[in-house]
């Protein structure tokens, strides 16, 4: 057998033939193209953003005035629980997986993610877990103990229905997707960077996705364990959280927040990476302090594991323990400060162009600084003990999460959607959307600081008149609807641009990273030749990258010998091996369907159904690993 293959043979199939996938429904189910999967992530996550947003608008309507009865207390508790679960697990994390999925291989010059089928599996499990969690509405047993789900309120004694089972199993379910995605990102970023992209030439957004992925791998198992223990206690009568049998309710809180605090950074770090991607493009200046930002992102991810107890300052923990946590909670502000001032330095050194994506970045900066400052206040223990679980907290974390995630995300949407669809979004409508969102956001959430300081506790379905809370609540409700309108404008812009947007061309903004070198939308194989990179801003510095076709004599590698991509070394990105990539397959969607059926079986105690689900899952897995084409996944 010949062991060296001749790539120059004229009978060689083109890249289109090797990488192209048929269109249509079947292909939509079986695709392993990171770009199509990324787009599915993005759209699905946005659907969940709408669901979570509608939930919050119903709550704000209920709270517009004291003693309203638009919805019952049951429904209110269900809504704020599902709002939190949706926004955290079904919107924020997946939407970043979506952007990451689409952009990371393009930014690092790869042809796909490291594990394309695992990637598809991650998406389908995400969708299935979302369907699973929302199917609770059909049964009428919707989780209602908050996204933090404290025991014993969520334990078998005080929540005997199956509502909390939807929560615990749903989170275990979605964790499968998130973990699979995280491992995929880590391997992709470590092993698939284009030749020459040494560790100091990785785009900051990619660093952000890497920090997020490491945080997921290290933090998420704790939540999974917490949920497993809770299910054992609820369904099988085990004791972990039950003080009467040697358990302790605080164990849940520790496990939950060991995950829960890093989760904040899981969401924030890639979003900050987006900011770092947009600022050089719109200032025309290389990022000032690249290395500072990278170290700051990693430091944040690391210190994020040492501050979970600051969610528990009111539980009566020993003062000494509290002091240490307060210390780390103060000092986690420093890496954020470093990033903020590096951005400001770049803004000053360059010339900001106030396009829509840049407006979102500037809006983000103001909102995020306020959220960061109120976050520092929470490290001041006595102040935390005063406003903990009041509306002040809601104000704070929405400034951090909406400010730190939603604004960068919408900026990123205006920035990268032209790359994904080939069409520009409307600039005028974009500016309208930004200003409406910016105004609506601040009108909605700034008054909540005041409500909290005036003593309004959170998670209450109504409140009494005459306490000074009525005015701020009404203003906040008006702001919420304004924010909703602003978001809707961007969604409309998205739809409009699909048909009416101006053609984007390869590089409408003058971007600095590799994705701008190829066409919009990129071909299935991303780049005609896998480029050799010589700079942190390759598209600015290497004119030979144009159209994603660096000529072989300039370092481009066509890899024509099959469905191939390159494996490069960890630190300096030297080519090490050629990797055979898998083709489209239905195995991931079948395995996910099996899981969905299985989880339904467990939640209803229908063990036969669970068995059917497990069998389908096992079938999907065997089909997956039974290689018909040689791939590196086996």
């Amino acid at each position, binding site marked *: 057998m010949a062991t060296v293959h001749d790539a120059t043979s004229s009978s060689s199939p083109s890249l289109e033939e090797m990488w192209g996938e048929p269109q249509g429904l079947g292909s939509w189910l079986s695709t392993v193209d990171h770009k199509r999967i990324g787009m599915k992530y993005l759209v699905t996550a946005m659907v969940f953003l709408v669901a979570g947003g509608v939930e919050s608008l119903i709550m704000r309507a209920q709270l517009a005035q004291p003693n309203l009865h638009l919805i019952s207390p049951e429904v209110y508790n269900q809504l704020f629980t599902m709002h939190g679960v949706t926004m955290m697990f079904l919107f924020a994390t997946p939407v970043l997986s979506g952007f990451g999925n689409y952009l990371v291989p393009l930014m690092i010059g790869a042809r796909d993610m490291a594990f394309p089928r695992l990637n598809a599996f991650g998406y389908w499990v995400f969708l299935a877990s979302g369907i699973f969690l929302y199917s609770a509405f059909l049964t009428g047993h919707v989780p209602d103990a908050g996204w933090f789900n404290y025991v014993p309120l969520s334990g078998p004694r*005080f929540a005997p229905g199956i509502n909390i089972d939807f929560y615990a199993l749903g989170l275990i379910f979605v964790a499968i997707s998130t973990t699979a995605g995280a491992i995929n990102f880590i391997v992709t970023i470590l092993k698939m960077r284009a030749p020459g992209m040494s560790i100091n030439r990785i785009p900051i957004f990619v660093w952000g996705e890497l920090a997020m992925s490491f945080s997921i791998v290290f933090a998420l198992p704790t939540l999974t364990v917490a949920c497993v223990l809770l299910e054992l206690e609820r369904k099988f009568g085990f004791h972990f959280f039950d*003080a009467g049998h040697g358990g302790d*309710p605080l164990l849940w809180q520790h496990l939950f927040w060991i995950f829960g605090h890093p989760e904040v950074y899981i969401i924030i770090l890639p979003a900050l990476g987006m900011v770092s991607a947009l600022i050089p493009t719109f200032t025309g200046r290389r990022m000032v302090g690249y290395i500072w930002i990278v170290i700051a992102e990693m430091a944040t991810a690391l210190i994020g594991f040492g501050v979970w107890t600051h969610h528990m300052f009111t539980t009566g923990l020993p003062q000494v323990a509290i002091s240490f946590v307060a210390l780390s909670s103060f000092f986690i502000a*420093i890496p954020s400060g470093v990033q903020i001032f590096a951005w400001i330095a770049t*803004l000053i050194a360059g010339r900001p162009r106030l396009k829509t994506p840049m407006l979102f970045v500037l809006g983000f900066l103001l909102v995020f600084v306020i959220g960061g400052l109120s976050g520092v206040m929470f490290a001041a223990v006595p102040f935390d003990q*005063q406003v903990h679980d009041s509306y002040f907290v809601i104000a704070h974390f929405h400034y951090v999460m909406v400010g730190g995630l939603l604004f960068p995300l919408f900026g990123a949407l205006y920035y990268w959607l032209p790359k994904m669809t080939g069409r520009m979004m409307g600039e005028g409508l974009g500016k309208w959307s930004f200003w409406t969102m910016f105004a609506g956001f601040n009108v909605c959430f700034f008054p909540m600081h005041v409500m909290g300081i005036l*003593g309004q506790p959170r998670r209450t379905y109504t409140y009494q008149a005459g306490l000074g809370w009525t005015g701020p609540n009404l203003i906040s409700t008006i702001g919420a609807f304004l924010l909703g309108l602003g978001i809707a404008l961007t969604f409309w812009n998205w739809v409009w641009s699909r048909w009416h947007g101006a053609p984007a061309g390869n590089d409408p903004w003058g971007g600095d990273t590799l994705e701008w070198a190829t066409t919009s939308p990129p071909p299935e194989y991303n780049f005609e030749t896998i480029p050799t990179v010589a700079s942190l801003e390759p598209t600015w510095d290497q004119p030979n990258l144009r159209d994603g076709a660096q000529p072989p004599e300039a370092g481009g590698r066509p890899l024509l010998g099959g469905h191939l991509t390159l494996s490069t070394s960890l630190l300096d990105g030297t080519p090490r091996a050629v990797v055979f990539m898998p083709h489209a397959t239905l195995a991931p969607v079948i395995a996910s369907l099996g899981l969905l059926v299985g989880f339904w079986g467990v939640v209803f105690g229908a063990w036969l159904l669970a068995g059917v689900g497990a069998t389908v899952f096992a079938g999907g897995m065997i089909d997956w690993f039974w290689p018909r084409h040689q791939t590196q996944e086996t």
Partner: protein
Amino acid sequence: MLRADGLGALDIERFWWILFGISAAVFAIVLGLMMVALARRHRPVPADEAAGKHPEDEPAWGGSFILFSGVVVPAIILAGTFGLTLHEMNVLSSPGHHAAMTITVTGHDWWWEARYPGGAITANEIHIPTGEVVRVRLLTADVIHSFWVPQLQTKTDMIPGRTNETWLETGQPGRYRGQCAQFCGLQHAHMIFYVVADPPDTFATWLAGQAQPAPPPTGALATAGEQIFTTQTCAGCHAIRGTSAAARIGPDLTHIASRQTIGAGVLDNTAGNLAAWITDPQHAKPGADMPPTDLTPDQVQALVAYLQTLN
């Protein structure tokens, strides 16, 4: 802004203004720098940049700017705030150690029980003497609750299997609103209580009165009411010291007429509200443990008349 009236809350209020001041200053600096960047954006473009070349080097001031404003200054501010925090923690924890009196407060779904030295038991109303530090032991009968009187003191959780402590102190006689601050289920929104601060001698008189059993009813209507209370479902959950009703599931009603609200702050304590509450508590507080009664209007009237004698 906090409308603080207690030692603890006054301290926090001072602390808050310091934190707010620092934050406002930092925000103003960031905003100012952003404005500088925006104002300079129309400055002339050098020829090579205009030709599409991107400047190679970092500005000379870049590294030191980030180091100074992103690390050094924040570290100094944060270290100072941390020191202040330790100081405040110390200030807030110490008074509880030398309190003369301890009140035990137990959180229930969705009301509060307070037990005093000498046997007095109240619900949803905690009386304290002014000018004295009162220690509060915090327990729960079911799920996690959190004890919070915003104008007097920070919050402390009530956790199954644990006993937490806090303290209250105020120099001002008055009525201070408190509310459960940890989500505890359906009626978390209506788990309200009041702290009533009275001068020490008024408080002593009140405490002695509350420790007494209920007086025997006078008058036919009230006597009938007592009969109904002890023989109907009421006595299955509630206690009135001095009668045969001794259950401990619901609030102790021995001196219910002395309280200002019913249903943990849901309704003012008037005859009409009391009748409405007894007839259908689920209307005012859906999900509360107390079931609707099938008493006739006459019976309710007698019961209310009796309860109103319990001063």
